[in-house]
């Protein structure tokens, strides 16, 4: 069975997911096969000398720490190809004053650059996941993505109307990364649902474009996180499926 939800370019032909058909337990294997094929391409594409960026290292640490605390048995399934020596070298991962100040400087009645919002949300969630502003702004982004199936470069005052490009792969990846850390911290299923859709969109795009626009190790981390989140949920719900 083919995984149906990333077979065509979802930026060109958005998937609405309405009344999706029941396909039985085989859907899980087809999903995993699809994601693992993408991971294989990622890993073949990484150069030996590459280092992972600070943002990827920070996200990796947070997700791993949450797995250690909440689902230690799943840790062995979480093995994104990130250079562990890079991660060990982070001494001061959080610049708290800067993150806090930036979050407080984003206003609904002003235009918002999506890349700045996502960067800021990332830092602010790591700083204090319970800060209500994080949820408010993440929910606004989720709502915009769920309704339009796009993320725009910028949103006009009121955060309804998008402006600029809506095909910036790095924005979708960064959104997926933010959703990953938020879900790792909160376990709220609605964010996992959106993460799955963003990953469908990303993996529906030509791999050469992903390799060009997403930082090295970045796609690996997002897809590895998405898979481990689902494996934890499947196990919690007593669902067993055939692993190929």
């Amino acid at each position, binding site marked *: 069975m083919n995984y149906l939800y990333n077979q065509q370019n979802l930026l060109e032909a958005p998937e609405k997911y309405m009344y999706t058909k029941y396909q039985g337990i085989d859907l899980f294997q087809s999903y995993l096969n699809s994601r693992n094929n993408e991971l294989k391409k990622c890993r073949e594409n990484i150069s030996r000398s590459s280092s992972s960026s600070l943002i990827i290292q920070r996200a990796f640490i947070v997700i791993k720490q949450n797995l250690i605390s909440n689902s230690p048995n799943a840790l062995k399934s979480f093995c994104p190809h990130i250079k562990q020596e890079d991660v060990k070298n982070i001494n001061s991962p959080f610049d708290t004053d800067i993150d806090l100040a930036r979050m407080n400087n984003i206003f609904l009645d002003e235009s918002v650059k999506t890349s700045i919002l996502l960067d800021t949300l990332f830092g602010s969630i790591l700083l204090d996941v319970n800060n209500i502003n994080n949820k408010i702004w993440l929910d606004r982004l989720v709502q915009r993505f769920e*309704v339009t199936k796009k993320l725009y470069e910028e949103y006009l005052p009121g955060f309804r109307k998008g402006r600029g490009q809506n095909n910036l792969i790095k924005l979708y990846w960064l959104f997926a990364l933010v959703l990953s850390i938020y879900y790792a911290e909160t376990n709220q*299923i*609605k964010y996992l*649902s*959106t993460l*799955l859709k963003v990953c469908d969109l990303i993996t529906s795009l030509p791999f050469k474009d992903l390799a060009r626009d997403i930082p090295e190790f970045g796609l690996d981390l997002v897809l590895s996180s998405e898979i481990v989140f689902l494996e934890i949920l499947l196990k919690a719900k007593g*669902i067993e499926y055939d692993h190929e």
Partner: protein
Amino acid sequence: MIMNDIAMMAADTSRSRVYVQSLVRNNLLPRFVLVLGNKANTVLPGQINNSDFENTNQDMEISHDYWSEANNNLLEPIQATLEASSIEFEQLETTNLHDPAVIKSICDRPESTFIYSGYGGVILRKELFLTGKKFLHVHGGYLPNYKGSTTNYYSLIVDNSIGASSLFLDEDIDSGPMLRRKKFPPPEDRTQIDHIYDSAARAKVLVETLQEYQNSGEFQCKADLEKGETYFIIHPILKHIAILSKNNR
């Protein structure tokens, strides 16, 4: 018994069929039904492929009173049920709730309240609210905890239950005022939630809401629904987890 101040706006969907059959069974007849037909050959959100249901056993054993409205014939056209029960209806060949002919038909009716059962994914706009009518909707989810779309799959994963809540629509999504809500145990066959059990849970709450209205002579608003979490259409992987979950069964 005909409810003189109650009408219905019904898209030709499985949910509308369940609603009308349940209302008839419970002797709660709307005075008028506006049917929105789908002329096209394509199946719209909320409609069934008849072939998918032809081999389904529609005479299900309903072992629990919660599912008293689950035993309906989804293949029976809404018009057939209405004609058999002598309920006045008008059919407009449009699927657009905001079509001027729909607005005019609603405006021209004397009933103050329309039971709403539209096609999936449509949000009512100002034109409908300007008719001055109230639109009684039953949301598929337990409010205010589960606002938005496909929430019963989310609540199956989180709470192992599904829900339905009646409310009068306003221009915000699932924001009240709420009339009645109810939680339901998971159905035996979770693959039939979309067209059978979600509709049956809503129909049950609709019937109870209208029975309360019949008994008291007015709708009893319980609360406004400002708080709560808003959900969006569930991803198919999570939908399958909700269906196939073995824990708590």
